[in-house]
Protein backbone atom coordinates (compact mmCIF):
# COMPACT_ATOMS: atom_id res chain seq x y z
CA UNK A 1 0.00 0.00 0.00
CA UNK A 2 2.66 2.41 1.09
CA UNK A 3 4.97 1.40 -1.76
CA UNK A 4 2.38 1.83 -4.46
CA UNK A 5 1.52 5.24 -3.11
CA UNK A 6 5.17 6.29 -3.25
CA UNK A 7 5.29 5.17 -6.84
CA UNK A 8 2.24 7.16 -7.82
CA UNK A 9 3.40 10.35 -6.18
CA UNK A 10 7.20 10.46 -5.88
CA UNK A 11 8.50 12.79 -3.22
CA UNK A 12 10.84 15.59 -4.23
CA UNK A 13 14.31 14.06 -3.61
CA UNK A 14 15.62 17.53 -2.69
CA UNK A 15 13.09 17.97 0.13
CA UNK A 16 14.98 16.07 2.83
CA UNK A 17 18.38 17.74 2.23
CA UNK A 18 16.66 21.13 2.25
CA UNK A 19 14.90 20.39 5.53
CA UNK A 20 18.14 19.16 7.09
CA UNK A 21 20.02 22.25 5.93
CA UNK A 22 17.36 24.50 7.43
CA UNK A 23 17.55 22.69 10.74
CA UNK A 24 21.35 22.85 10.61
CA UNK A 25 21.26 26.60 9.96
CA UNK A 26 18.99 27.17 12.96
CA UNK A 27 21.13 24.95 15.19
CA UNK A 28 24.22 26.91 14.15
CA UNK A 29 22.60 30.32 14.53
CA UNK A 30 21.13 29.75 17.98
CA UNK A 31 24.45 29.67 19.91
CA UNK A 32 25.35 32.88 18.07
CA UNK A 33 22.34 34.63 19.53
CA UNK A 34 23.08 33.23 22.98
CA UNK A 35 26.74 34.17 22.74
CA UNK A 36 25.98 37.78 21.83
CA UNK A 37 23.46 38.02 24.69
CA UNK A 38 20.86 39.12 22.21
CA UNK A 39 17.78 40.12 24.23
CA UNK A 40 15.39 42.31 22.25
CA UNK A 41 13.42 42.94 25.43
CA UNK A 42 16.13 45.27 26.77
CA UNK A 43 15.37 47.68 23.94
CA UNK A 44 11.89 48.43 25.23
CA UNK A 45 12.68 48.62 28.95
CA UNK A 46 11.44 51.96 30.21
CA UNK A 47 14.82 52.99 31.64
CA UNK A 48 16.60 52.40 28.34
CA UNK A 49 13.83 54.09 26.39
CA UNK A 50 14.33 57.12 28.59
CA UNK A 51 18.03 57.24 27.77
CA UNK A 52 17.24 56.99 24.08
CA UNK A 53 14.69 59.73 24.28
CA UNK A 54 17.05 62.12 26.02
CA UNK A 55 19.84 61.29 23.58
CA UNK A 56 17.63 61.81 20.56
CA UNK A 57 16.03 64.97 21.95
CA UNK A 58 19.43 66.65 21.80
CA UNK A 59 19.60 65.89 18.07
CA UNK A 60 17.01 68.44 17.08
CA UNK A 61 17.26 70.92 15.40
CA UNK A 62 20.16 70.17 13.02
CA UNK A 63 23.00 72.64 13.21
CA UNK A 64 22.94 74.68 10.00
CA UNK A 65 25.14 77.62 10.99
CA UNK A 66 27.36 78.75 8.13
CA UNK A 67 30.57 78.21 10.09
CA UNK A 68 29.67 74.63 10.80
CA UNK A 69 28.50 74.03 7.24
CA UNK A 70 31.83 75.31 5.91
CA UNK A 71 33.68 72.88 8.17
CA UNK A 72 31.27 70.13 7.17
CA UNK A 73 31.79 70.79 3.47
CA UNK A 74 35.52 70.54 3.89
CA UNK A 75 35.28 67.34 5.91
CA UNK A 76 32.88 65.84 3.35
CA UNK A 77 35.31 66.57 0.54
CA UNK A 78 38.10 65.05 2.60
CA UNK A 79 36.05 61.90 3.20
CA UNK A 80 35.10 61.60 -0.47
CA UNK A 81 38.69 62.14 -1.51
CA UNK A 82 39.87 59.54 0.98
CA UNK A 83 37.38 56.97 -0.28
CA UNK A 84 38.06 57.68 -3.94
CA UNK A 85 41.83 57.77 -3.66
CA UNK A 86 41.80 54.63 -1.53
CA UNK A 87 39.62 52.81 -4.02
CA UNK A 88 41.73 53.93 -6.98
CA UNK A 89 44.87 52.63 -5.29
CA UNK A 90 43.03 49.42 -4.45
CA UNK A 91 42.11 48.96 -8.10
CA UNK A 92 45.77 49.18 -9.10
CA UNK A 93 46.41 46.09 -7.02
CA UNK A 94 43.06 44.33 -7.37
CA UNK A 95 42.81 44.21 -11.17
CA UNK A 96 46.14 42.45 -11.84
CA UNK A 97 45.61 40.09 -8.91
CA UNK A 98 42.08 39.21 -10.00
CA UNK A 99 43.32 38.46 -13.51
CA UNK A 100 46.09 36.31 -12.05
CA UNK A 101 43.87 34.21 -9.86
CA UNK A 102 40.81 33.87 -12.10
CA UNK A 103 40.41 30.54 -13.84
CA UNK A 104 38.46 32.17 -16.64
CA UNK A 105 41.58 32.81 -18.72
CA UNK A 106 43.16 29.39 -18.46
CA UNK A 107 44.69 28.38 -21.79
CA UNK A 108 45.18 24.81 -20.67
CA UNK A 109 41.43 24.58 -20.05
CA UNK A 110 41.01 24.85 -23.82
CA UNK A 111 42.54 21.43 -24.28
CA UNK A 112 41.27 19.49 -21.31
CA UNK A 113 38.22 21.37 -20.16
CA UNK A 114 39.81 22.22 -16.83
CA UNK A 115 42.89 24.24 -15.92
CA UNK A 116 46.13 22.32 -15.48
CA UNK A 117 46.89 21.58 -11.83
CA UNK A 118 50.25 23.30 -12.06
CA UNK A 119 48.61 26.51 -13.23
CA UNK A 120 46.08 26.14 -10.44
CA UNK A 121 48.96 25.88 -7.98
CA UNK A 122 50.38 29.10 -9.38
CA UNK A 123 47.01 30.81 -9.07
CA UNK A 124 46.91 29.94 -5.40
CA UNK A 125 49.53 32.45 -4.16
CA UNK A 126 47.57 35.27 -5.81
CA UNK A 127 44.43 34.03 -4.09
CA UNK A 128 46.29 33.79 -0.80
CA UNK A 129 47.57 37.33 -1.16
CA UNK A 130 44.01 38.57 -1.71
CA UNK A 131 42.88 36.74 1.41
CA UNK A 132 45.77 38.23 3.37
CA UNK A 133 44.94 41.72 2.16
CA UNK A 134 41.32 41.60 3.19
CA UNK A 135 41.57 39.52 6.36
CA UNK A 136 42.80 42.45 8.48
CA UNK A 137 40.05 45.06 8.99
CA UNK A 138 40.72 48.52 7.59
CA UNK A 139 40.41 50.05 11.05
CA UNK A 140 43.43 48.07 12.23
CA UNK A 141 45.44 49.20 9.23
CA UNK A 142 44.31 52.76 9.94
CA UNK A 143 45.50 52.57 13.54
CA UNK A 144 48.82 51.25 12.28
CA UNK A 145 49.24 53.91 9.60
CA UNK A 146 48.17 56.74 11.91
CA UNK A 147 51.17 55.81 13.99
CA UNK A 148 53.42 55.41 10.94
CA UNK A 149 52.48 58.40 8.78
CA UNK A 150 50.81 60.58 11.39
CA UNK A 151 47.26 61.88 11.85
CA UNK A 152 45.37 62.71 8.68
CA UNK A 153 43.68 61.25 5.64
CA UNK A 154 46.81 59.54 4.26
CA UNK A 155 46.46 56.79 6.84
CA UNK A 156 42.83 56.28 5.79
CA UNK A 157 43.70 56.16 2.10
CA UNK A 158 46.34 53.49 2.66
CA UNK A 159 44.08 51.45 4.91
CA UNK A 160 41.26 51.48 2.36
CA UNK A 161 43.64 50.69 -0.49
CA UNK A 162 44.96 47.59 1.24
CA UNK A 163 41.72 46.07 2.51
CA UNK A 164 39.65 46.93 -0.52
CA UNK A 165 42.16 45.55 -3.01
CA UNK A 166 41.62 42.18 -1.33
CA UNK A 167 37.84 42.41 -1.52
CA UNK A 168 37.70 43.80 -5.05
CA UNK A 169 40.22 41.29 -6.38
CA UNK A 170 38.32 38.33 -4.97
CA UNK A 171 34.93 39.43 -6.27
CA UNK A 172 36.29 40.54 -9.66
CA UNK A 173 37.86 37.13 -10.19
CA UNK A 174 34.54 35.50 -9.34
CA UNK A 175 32.63 37.79 -11.68
CA UNK A 176 34.97 36.88 -14.55
CA UNK A 177 34.28 33.23 -13.88
CA UNK A 178 30.53 33.68 -13.61
CA UNK A 179 29.94 35.18 -17.06
CA UNK A 180 29.67 33.19 -20.28
CA UNK A 181 33.14 31.77 -20.97
CA UNK A 182 32.57 30.81 -24.58
CA UNK A 183 33.47 34.15 -26.19
CA UNK A 184 36.84 34.31 -24.43
CA UNK A 185 37.54 30.64 -25.12
CA UNK A 186 36.75 31.12 -28.79
CA UNK A 187 39.20 34.01 -28.92
CA UNK A 188 41.92 32.04 -27.14
CA UNK A 189 41.21 29.23 -29.58
CA UNK A 190 41.86 31.67 -32.42
CA UNK A 191 45.29 32.50 -31.05
CA UNK A 192 44.48 35.62 -29.09
CA UNK A 193 46.54 36.52 -26.04
CA UNK A 194 44.87 36.13 -22.68
CA UNK A 195 44.57 39.80 -21.88
CA UNK A 196 43.08 40.57 -25.29
CA UNK A 197 40.68 37.64 -24.93
CA UNK A 198 39.69 39.03 -21.55
CA UNK A 199 39.04 42.51 -22.93
CA UNK A 200 37.07 41.30 -25.96
CA UNK A 201 35.43 38.21 -24.53
CA UNK A 202 34.73 38.73 -20.85
CA UNK A 203 34.76 42.45 -20.18
CA UNK A 204 31.71 43.31 -22.36
CA UNK A 205 29.55 40.84 -20.45
CA UNK A 206 31.01 41.53 -17.03
CA UNK A 207 31.21 45.34 -17.28
CA UNK A 208 27.83 46.01 -15.76
CA UNK A 209 28.37 43.83 -12.74
CA UNK A 210 31.93 45.07 -12.26
CA UNK A 211 30.79 48.69 -12.31
CA UNK A 212 27.97 48.09 -9.93
CA UNK A 213 30.14 46.21 -7.48
CA UNK A 214 32.90 48.82 -7.66
CA UNK A 215 30.43 51.61 -6.97
CA UNK A 216 28.99 49.67 -4.06
CA UNK A 217 32.51 49.26 -2.71
CA UNK A 218 33.05 52.99 -3.15
CA UNK A 219 29.97 53.57 -1.05
CA UNK A 220 31.41 51.21 1.56
CA UNK A 221 34.72 53.06 1.35
CA UNK A 222 32.94 56.31 2.16
CA UNK A 223 31.47 54.71 5.27
CA UNK A 224 34.79 53.10 6.15
CA UNK A 225 36.61 56.40 5.86
CA UNK A 226 34.08 57.87 8.27
CA UNK A 227 34.81 55.14 10.79
CA UNK A 228 38.53 55.60 10.36
CA UNK A 229 38.04 59.26 11.15
CA UNK A 230 37.35 58.12 14.71
CA UNK A 231 40.94 56.91 15.03
CA UNK A 232 42.31 60.17 13.68
CA UNK A 233 42.27 59.70 9.91
CA UNK A 234 40.41 62.97 9.36
CA UNK A 235 37.24 63.70 7.42
CA UNK A 236 33.64 63.38 8.57
CA UNK A 237 34.52 60.67 11.07
CA UNK A 238 36.81 62.89 13.05
CA UNK A 239 34.13 65.54 12.99
CA UNK A 240 31.35 63.30 14.24
CA UNK A 241 33.69 61.98 16.92
CA UNK A 242 34.29 65.53 18.18
CA UNK A 243 30.59 66.42 18.01
CA UNK A 244 29.58 63.37 20.00
CA UNK A 245 32.20 64.09 22.63
CA UNK A 246 30.89 67.65 22.94
CA UNK A 247 27.27 66.41 23.11
CA UNK A 248 26.48 68.65 20.12
CA UNK A 249 23.46 66.62 18.91
CA UNK A 250 22.51 69.16 16.26
CA UNK A 251 25.91 68.81 14.63
CA UNK A 252 25.73 65.03 14.80
CA UNK A 253 22.40 64.99 13.03
CA UNK A 254 23.64 67.32 10.29
CA UNK A 255 26.61 65.02 9.70
CA UNK A 256 24.34 61.98 9.62
CA UNK A 257 22.12 63.70 7.06
CA UNK A 258 25.25 64.31 4.98
CA UNK A 259 25.99 60.56 5.09
CA UNK A 260 22.48 59.88 3.91
CA UNK A 261 22.92 62.23 0.97
CA UNK A 262 26.29 60.68 0.06
CA UNK A 263 24.92 57.14 0.03
CA UNK A 264 21.87 58.30 -1.89
CA UNK A 265 24.13 59.93 -4.48
CA UNK A 266 26.26 56.79 -4.79
CA UNK A 267 23.13 54.72 -5.27
CA UNK A 268 21.81 57.03 -7.99
CA UNK A 269 25.16 57.04 -9.76
CA UNK A 270 25.27 53.25 -9.62
CA UNK A 271 21.82 52.79 -11.11
CA UNK A 272 22.56 55.41 -13.78
CA UNK A 273 25.75 53.64 -14.84
CA UNK A 274 24.04 50.25 -14.75
CA UNK A 275 21.36 51.56 -17.07
CA UNK A 276 23.99 53.03 -19.38
CA UNK A 277 25.88 49.74 -19.54
CA UNK A 278 22.82 47.53 -19.84
Amino acid at each position, binding site marked *: MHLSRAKADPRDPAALPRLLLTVLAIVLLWPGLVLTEFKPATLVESRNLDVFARFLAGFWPPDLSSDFLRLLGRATLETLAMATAGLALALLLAVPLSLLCSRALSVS*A*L*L*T*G*RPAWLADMLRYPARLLLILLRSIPEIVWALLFVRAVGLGPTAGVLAIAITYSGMLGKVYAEIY*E*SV*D*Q*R*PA*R*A*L*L*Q*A*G*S*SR*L*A*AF*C*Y*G*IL*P*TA*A*QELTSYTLYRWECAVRASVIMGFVGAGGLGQMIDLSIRMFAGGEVVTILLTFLLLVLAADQLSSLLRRR*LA
Partner: protein
Amino acid sequence: MSIRLDGVGLTHANGYQALQQIDLSIVSGERVAIIGPSGAGKTSLLRLLGTGLMPSAGQLQLLGEQPATLRGRALRRLRARIGLIHQSPPLPPRQRVVTAVLAGRLGQWSLLRALVSLCYPLDAAGARAALEPLDLEDKLFTRCDQLSGGQLQRVGIARVLYQQADLLLADEPVSAMDPVLAEHTLGLLSQLAERRKLTLVASLHAVDLALRHFPRVIGLRDGRVLFDLPAAEVSQTHLAQLYVNDSLTGHTPPLPSAESAQAEQAPRRCT
Protein backbone atom coordinates in the same frame (compact mmCIF):
# COMPACT_ATOMS: atom_id res chain seq x y z
CA MET B 1 48.85 19.94 -47.88
CA SER B 2 46.49 21.56 -45.43
CA ILE B 3 45.56 18.70 -43.13
CA ARG B 4 47.01 15.24 -42.70
CA LEU B 5 45.99 12.60 -40.19
CA ASP B 6 47.90 9.33 -39.87
CA GLY B 7 46.28 6.70 -37.71
CA VAL B 8 44.85 9.30 -35.39
CA GLY B 9 42.92 8.13 -32.36
CA LEU B 10 41.32 10.14 -29.63
CA THR B 11 40.36 8.91 -26.19
CA HIS B 12 38.59 11.36 -23.91
CA ALA B 13 39.59 11.76 -20.27
CA ASN B 14 36.60 9.65 -19.23
CA GLY B 15 37.90 6.72 -21.29
CA TYR B 16 35.44 7.12 -24.14
CA GLN B 17 37.08 6.41 -27.48
CA ALA B 18 35.82 9.15 -29.76
CA LEU B 19 38.05 8.52 -32.78
CA GLN B 20 40.10 5.53 -33.88
CA GLN B 21 42.56 4.98 -36.69
CA ILE B 22 41.66 7.99 -38.82
CA ASP B 23 43.73 8.44 -41.98
CA LEU B 24 42.83 11.54 -43.86
CA SER B 25 44.43 14.16 -46.00
CA ILE B 26 42.85 17.35 -47.16
CA VAL B 27 44.72 19.57 -49.60
CA SER B 28 44.54 23.31 -49.39
CA GLY B 29 41.50 24.83 -51.08
CA GLU B 30 39.37 21.74 -50.63
CA ARG B 31 35.85 21.93 -49.23
CA VAL B 32 34.89 18.91 -47.17
CA ALA B 33 31.71 18.04 -45.31
CA ILE B 34 31.72 15.56 -42.44
CA ILE B 35 28.45 13.75 -41.88
CA GLY B 36 27.38 10.96 -39.58
CA PRO B 37 24.99 10.11 -36.77
CA SER B 38 25.21 11.85 -33.39
CA GLY B 39 28.12 10.60 -31.34
CA ALA B 40 30.04 9.51 -34.43
CA GLY B 41 32.92 11.82 -33.50
CA LYS B 42 32.26 14.77 -35.81
CA THR B 43 32.73 17.37 -33.11
CA SER B 44 35.77 15.59 -31.71
CA LEU B 45 37.37 15.51 -35.15
CA LEU B 46 36.73 19.20 -35.67
CA ARG B 47 38.07 20.09 -32.25
CA LEU B 48 41.15 18.06 -33.09
CA LEU B 49 41.59 20.03 -36.31
CA GLY B 50 41.07 23.27 -34.39
CA THR B 51 43.81 22.34 -31.87
CA GLY B 52 41.15 22.24 -29.17
CA LEU B 53 42.12 18.64 -28.48
CA MET B 54 45.32 16.72 -29.06
CA PRO B 55 45.32 13.21 -30.56
CA SER B 56 46.00 10.42 -28.11
CA ALA B 57 47.40 8.22 -30.90
CA GLY B 58 48.80 8.77 -34.37
CA GLN B 59 50.04 11.92 -36.04
CA LEU B 60 48.19 15.09 -36.87
CA GLN B 61 49.62 17.67 -39.23
CA LEU B 62 47.95 21.04 -39.63
CA LEU B 63 49.11 23.66 -42.14
CA GLY B 64 52.56 22.11 -42.12
CA GLU B 65 52.88 22.05 -38.34
CA GLN B 66 52.45 19.34 -35.74
CA PRO B 67 50.25 20.93 -33.06
CA ALA B 68 51.09 18.25 -30.49
CA THR B 69 54.74 19.39 -30.48
CA LEU B 70 53.95 23.11 -30.24
CA ARG B 71 53.82 25.15 -27.06
CA GLY B 72 53.00 28.72 -26.12
CA ARG B 73 53.63 31.29 -28.79
CA ALA B 74 54.08 28.84 -31.65
CA LEU B 75 50.78 27.17 -30.83
CA ARG B 76 49.09 30.56 -30.69
CA ARG B 77 50.51 31.44 -34.11
CA LEU B 78 49.11 28.22 -35.54
CA ARG B 79 45.76 28.84 -33.88
CA ALA B 80 45.60 32.30 -35.41
CA ARG B 81 45.68 30.65 -38.85
CA ILE B 82 42.68 28.44 -38.10
CA GLY B 83 39.22 29.99 -38.13
CA LEU B 84 36.49 28.27 -36.16
CA ILE B 85 32.80 28.80 -36.90
CA HIS B 86 30.76 27.67 -33.93
CA GLN B 87 27.32 26.19 -33.75
CA SER B 88 26.10 29.18 -31.77
CA PRO B 89 28.42 32.11 -32.39
CA PRO B 90 30.20 32.96 -29.12
CA LEU B 91 29.75 36.71 -29.24
CA PRO B 92 29.17 38.81 -26.12
CA PRO B 93 25.62 40.19 -26.43
CA ARG B 94 26.67 43.71 -25.48
CA GLN B 95 29.51 43.88 -27.99
CA ARG B 96 29.07 45.81 -31.22
CA VAL B 97 29.36 43.98 -34.51
CA VAL B 98 32.43 45.96 -35.53
CA THR B 99 34.30 44.95 -32.37
CA ALA B 100 33.17 41.34 -32.65
CA VAL B 101 34.51 41.15 -36.21
CA LEU B 102 37.76 42.93 -35.41
CA ALA B 103 38.33 40.45 -32.56
CA GLY B 104 39.11 37.96 -35.33
CA ARG B 105 42.61 39.35 -35.65
CA LEU B 106 43.52 39.43 -31.96
CA GLY B 107 45.92 36.59 -32.67
CA GLN B 108 47.88 38.83 -35.01
CA TRP B 109 47.58 42.16 -33.26
CA SER B 110 49.79 43.48 -30.49
CA LEU B 111 48.08 43.92 -27.14
CA LEU B 112 48.36 47.70 -27.43
CA ARG B 113 46.62 47.70 -30.78
CA ALA B 114 43.91 45.40 -29.40
CA LEU B 115 43.30 47.70 -26.44
CA VAL B 116 43.19 50.85 -28.55
CA SER B 117 40.86 49.18 -31.01
CA LEU B 118 38.54 48.26 -28.16
CA CYS B 119 38.06 51.97 -27.44
CA TYR B 120 38.08 53.14 -31.04
CA PRO B 121 37.78 50.59 -33.89
CA LEU B 122 41.02 51.05 -35.81
CA ASP B 123 40.05 49.05 -38.87
CA ALA B 124 36.34 49.68 -39.31
CA ALA B 125 36.87 49.59 -43.08
CA GLY B 126 38.30 46.08 -42.82
CA ALA B 127 35.37 44.94 -40.71
CA ARG B 128 32.96 46.45 -43.22
CA ALA B 129 34.74 44.64 -46.05
CA ALA B 130 34.39 41.35 -44.17
CA LEU B 131 30.69 41.96 -43.55
CA GLU B 132 29.93 43.03 -47.10
CA PRO B 133 29.72 39.63 -48.80
CA LEU B 134 27.40 38.57 -45.97
CA ASP B 135 25.01 41.51 -46.53
CA LEU B 136 25.63 42.86 -43.07
CA GLU B 137 27.68 45.99 -43.76
CA ASP B 138 24.82 48.19 -42.54
CA LYS B 139 24.93 46.46 -39.14
CA LEU B 140 28.52 47.56 -38.47
CA PHE B 141 27.71 49.57 -35.33
CA THR B 142 24.75 47.50 -34.13
CA ARG B 143 25.01 45.59 -30.89
CA CYS B 144 25.13 41.82 -31.20
CA ASP B 145 22.04 41.33 -29.02
CA GLN B 146 19.98 43.21 -31.58
CA LEU B 147 20.71 40.71 -34.34
CA SER B 148 18.77 37.58 -35.21
CA GLY B 149 20.33 34.14 -34.89
CA GLY B 150 21.05 33.92 -38.60
CA GLN B 151 22.64 37.36 -38.64
CA LEU B 152 24.77 36.47 -35.63
CA GLN B 153 26.02 33.35 -37.36
CA ARG B 154 26.96 35.48 -40.36
CA VAL B 155 28.83 37.86 -38.04
CA GLY B 156 30.70 34.80 -36.80
CA ILE B 157 31.59 33.95 -40.40
CA ALA B 158 32.64 37.55 -41.06
CA ARG B 159 34.96 37.37 -38.07
CA VAL B 160 36.66 34.28 -39.45
CA LEU B 161 36.97 35.95 -42.87
CA TYR B 162 38.53 38.99 -41.23
CA GLN B 163 40.88 36.70 -39.33
CA GLN B 164 42.28 35.71 -42.76
CA ALA B 165 42.54 32.14 -41.60
CA ASP B 166 44.02 29.58 -43.99
CA LEU B 167 41.78 26.84 -42.68
CA LEU B 168 38.09 27.26 -41.89
CA LEU B 169 36.41 24.80 -39.55
CA ALA B 170 32.68 24.87 -39.03
CA ASP B 171 31.00 22.75 -36.37
CA GLU B 172 27.31 22.35 -37.25
CA PRO B 173 27.24 25.93 -38.52
CA VAL B 174 23.59 25.94 -39.54
CA SER B 175 21.93 23.43 -37.22
CA ALA B 176 20.14 26.18 -35.30
CA MET B 177 18.58 27.70 -38.41
CA ASP B 178 15.44 27.07 -40.39
CA PRO B 179 15.97 25.18 -43.67
CA VAL B 180 15.84 28.22 -45.96
CA LEU B 181 18.29 30.21 -43.90
CA ALA B 182 20.53 27.16 -43.46
CA GLU B 183 20.64 26.64 -47.22
CA HIS B 184 21.42 30.29 -47.82
CA THR B 185 24.11 30.62 -45.14
CA LEU B 186 25.87 27.38 -46.01
CA GLY B 187 25.80 28.28 -49.70
CA LEU B 188 27.35 31.62 -48.87
CA LEU B 189 30.05 30.05 -46.71
CA SER B 190 30.91 27.50 -49.36
CA GLN B 191 31.01 30.14 -52.09
CA LEU B 192 33.25 32.43 -50.07
CA ALA B 193 35.64 29.59 -49.33
CA GLU B 194 35.74 28.65 -53.00
CA ARG B 195 36.30 32.21 -54.18
CA ARG B 196 39.08 32.85 -51.67
CA LYS B 197 40.63 29.40 -52.11
CA LEU B 198 40.26 28.60 -48.42
CA THR B 199 40.21 25.10 -47.02
CA LEU B 200 36.82 24.47 -45.45
CA VAL B 201 35.87 21.55 -43.25
CA ALA B 202 32.32 21.51 -41.91
CA SER B 203 30.39 18.99 -39.88
CA LEU B 204 26.73 18.79 -40.82
CA HIS B 205 23.59 17.05 -39.63
CA ALA B 206 21.74 17.55 -42.89
CA VAL B 207 23.00 15.15 -45.56
CA ASP B 208 21.31 17.00 -48.44
CA LEU B 209 23.07 20.24 -47.53
CA ALA B 210 26.42 18.43 -47.42
CA LEU B 211 25.88 16.83 -50.81
CA ARG B 212 24.71 20.07 -52.40
CA HIS B 213 27.38 22.43 -51.18
CA PHE B 214 30.53 20.37 -50.72
CA PRO B 215 32.55 18.60 -53.41
CA ARG B 216 33.86 16.03 -50.96
CA VAL B 217 31.95 14.22 -48.23
CA ILE B 218 33.34 12.13 -45.38
CA GLY B 219 31.03 9.73 -43.55
CA LEU B 220 31.97 9.18 -39.92
CA ARG B 221 30.53 6.42 -37.77
CA ASP B 222 31.61 5.18 -34.34
CA GLY B 223 34.80 7.21 -34.54
CA ARG B 224 35.90 5.72 -37.88
CA VAL B 225 35.80 6.93 -41.45
CA LEU B 226 33.14 4.88 -43.22
CA PHE B 227 33.52 6.53 -46.60
CA ASP B 228 35.43 9.43 -48.08
CA LEU B 229 34.08 10.23 -51.53
CA PRO B 230 33.31 13.01 -53.98
CA ALA B 231 29.75 14.18 -53.33
CA ALA B 232 28.55 12.81 -56.66
CA GLU B 233 29.60 9.29 -55.76
CA VAL B 234 27.85 9.12 -52.41
CA SER B 235 24.99 6.68 -52.94
CA GLN B 236 21.89 5.78 -50.95
CA THR B 237 23.64 2.57 -49.92
CA HIS B 238 26.44 4.56 -48.35
CA LEU B 239 24.02 6.73 -46.46
CA ALA B 240 21.93 3.78 -45.34
CA GLN B 241 25.09 2.17 -44.00
CA LEU B 242 26.12 5.38 -42.29
CA TYR B 243 22.83 5.86 -40.48
CA VAL B 244 21.89 2.19 -40.06
CA ASN B 245 19.91 1.46 -36.89
CA ASP B 246 20.56 4.98 -35.82
CA SER B 247 17.10 5.41 -34.36
CA LEU B 248 17.10 1.96 -32.78
CA THR B 249 20.35 1.98 -30.81
CA GLY B 250 19.62 2.35 -27.16
CA HIS B 251 23.04 3.51 -26.05
CA THR B 252 23.63 7.20 -25.69
CA PRO B 253 27.21 8.22 -26.30
CA PRO B 254 28.85 10.46 -23.71
CA LEU B 255 28.72 14.15 -24.41
CA PRO B 256 31.55 15.50 -26.51
CA SER B 257 34.01 17.42 -24.36
CA ALA B 258 32.88 20.79 -25.63
CA GLU B 259 29.60 20.42 -23.81
CA SER B 260 31.04 18.68 -20.80
CA ALA B 261 33.54 21.49 -20.36
CA GLN B 262 30.60 23.86 -20.37
CA ALA B 263 28.60 21.65 -18.07
CA GLU B 264 31.27 21.29 -15.44
CA GLN B 265 31.37 25.06 -15.23
CA ALA B 266 28.02 25.22 -13.52
CA PRO B 267 28.50 23.06 -10.45
CA ARG B 268 31.85 24.65 -9.75
CA ARG B 269 30.13 28.01 -9.39
CA CYS B 270 27.62 26.64 -6.91
CA THR B 271 30.13 25.25 -4.47
